[in-house]
């Protein structure tokens, strides 16, 4: 592939995610990291040592005017996404934003309104659907191994560092990832009921939810960020179906079937994540990141819609808003109410 064919990438934000995306782009033969916009001179001075050939900018407009780019990764706090996406979109570029789409439902809707008529690619950083273990779980659920899914019980546990100052941002980010995984596995949510001492972002311990899907599937979810011993976000989902159960965790799938089905015997079958193929050629941070990043680059190269879109991000924003409304009003909230 010649240099001219490569997707030319600019990064906005030099935090952990900004550096990660820049690195992943650099290891992708179909893309090239061309510029970065940082928030202050200090970051510039520090990072320039490691990336001496990359032009650094303090102003997005200047970066967009100075460097020829096709694609921008926005890796800044969610309350900046709308203004940055608006500026970048005027230049007609592909845009990837880190999750959640924006800081509120109103801003998320404005983000989706920016989408032009199919010319560019818009995606968002939900990575769980790129993890082999969750992909296998979805395939099993879709392939009727268990026949009809009846209900699921899901949990997300995480221990917030005691020194955390940006609790709201961290919790919203973790909760939005969890909601995306639930939506991806079981389809959209029709209505939900949420109970907590406070709204999601500021709830000190966690949130319990009942989720009702149009497919008839019912979910119970327990989200906690105050349980000790969970330095990594830990997901567990138990699915009950008419012909068996499926336990999904970050590392294993435990299948129980009431009778033999296809290659699966009656009783337990355990699939470890290392039993599944790992297609990524580069590993950075965690499984799923390289795949998410390179899938977006592929979509840009082929001018195809990304498998994860800003519309998905808007749906997750609706779920967050509905959960907050339910907590405030102590009633079931339909997602159609929070349009």
């Amino acid at each position, binding site marked *: 592939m010649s240099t001219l064919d490569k997707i030319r990438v600019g990064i906005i934000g030099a935090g952990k995610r900004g550096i990660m995306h820049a690195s992943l782009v650099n290891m992708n033969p179909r893309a090239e990291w061309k510029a970065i916009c940082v928030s202050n001179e200090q970051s510039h001075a520090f990072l320039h040592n490691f990336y001496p050939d990359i032009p650094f900018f303090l102003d997005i407009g200047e970066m967009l005017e100075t460097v020829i780019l096709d694609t921008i990764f926005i890796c800044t706090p969610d309350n900046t996404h709308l203004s940055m996406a608006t500026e970048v979109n005027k230049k007609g570029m592909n845009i990837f934003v880190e999750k959640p789409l924006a800081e509120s439902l109103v801003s998320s809707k404005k983000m989706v309104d920016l989408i032009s008529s199919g010319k560019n690619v818009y995606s968002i950083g939900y990575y769980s659907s790129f993890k082999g273990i969750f992909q296998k779980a979805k395939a099993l659920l879709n392939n009727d191994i268990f026949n009809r899914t009846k209900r699921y019980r899901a949990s997300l546990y995480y221990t917030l560092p005691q020194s955390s100052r940006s609790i709201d941002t961290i919790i919203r980010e973790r909760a939005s990832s969890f909601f995306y995984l639930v939506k991806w596995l079981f389809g959209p949510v029709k209505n939900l009921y949420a109970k907590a001492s406070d709204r999601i972002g500021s709830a000190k311990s966690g949130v319990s939810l009942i989720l009702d899907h149009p497919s008839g599937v019912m979910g119970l979810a327990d989200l906690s960020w105050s349980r000790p011993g969970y330095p990594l976000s830990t997901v567990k989902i138990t699915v009950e179906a008419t012909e068996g159960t499926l336990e999904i965790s970050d590392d294993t799938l435990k299948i129980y079937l009431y009778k033999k089905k296809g290659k699966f015997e009656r009783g337990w079958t355990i699939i470890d994540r290392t039993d599944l193929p790992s297609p990524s050629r580069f590993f*950075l941070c965690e499984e799923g990141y390289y795949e998410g990043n390179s899938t977006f680059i592929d979509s840009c190269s082929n001018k195809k819609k990304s498998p994860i879109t800003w519309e998905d991000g808007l749906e997750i924003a609706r779920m967050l808003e509905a959960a907050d409304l339910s907590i405030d009003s102590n009633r079931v909230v339909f997602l159609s109410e929070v349009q």
Partner: protein
Amino acid sequence: MMEKIDRIILGSNAFEGVGYLSRAQTRHYLEFFSKKENITAILEASFNLGIKSFMCSNNSNILSALKDFKNKSDLSILAVIPNAYEYARESTEKGVLGTILSKAKEIDLYRKVRMGLRAIQKIQGIISKDLITLLTNLLDFEMASFHPYNVTGIILHGQVTDLALSSNNREIFDVYQKIVRERYKVQPMLATHNFGSLLPKLMEWKIKMPIMASFNKKGFIMKPSKEECERLLAESDYTIIAKKVLAGGRLTPEEALPYLSDKNIGSLVLGVGSLSEAYHTLSLAKSTFLT
């Protein structure tokens, strides 16, 4: 003068609460090894079995255990820097630079004195525009905790090596190895999760130092592929230290160790999560690799 790397090295992932089998295992390790006595017991068992190299970061539990370990002066420490798990966790809210600055400021007065440096100037030096000064300062901050111990090698953490690799900036590796060799007078090493990308790049740049990378029968975190890593390993004249030998706990030592016995491996790192595992795994590794 660089020392030879021992054939078998005790790893410390479990002591830091890092588990690759499951999140439940991670929680167990965090809880179990929060008691420094449990780390010290494994260090003693390992030492009594003749394993005299220990690879670890400056995790506070591990340093407390090392302090109590009676044979510490005879133990060869391979220091893994930086303590990437702590950095990753804190940088979620402080950012990469913010975390580094905050870590530097946390160094207590005692260690600042022991460093024998004008520490405040060093903190400012982190934002220097000079890569040598910056990396020297970062190394000094990380290595300050290891001052009382017999450090024979410094290993750049895999996450950091892989970030540096993706920057395609030869100077980072060059400066790193020079600082470690000239300032600390020990062996510089690199850990990686991407052996198949790192080794060819180092060969192209003519930079040679030992590489620690995943090698296991399951191909767990062998990137870009198990086959490519095995091919490069067979042809390599680099010293290779195998890690994740038990595929994050998915293989028994009996299943895992024969895979490495005919490979071009210089050393292997074995982590253990209990005393019984220490006796079992390390004894078997000794009989496979030291006889």
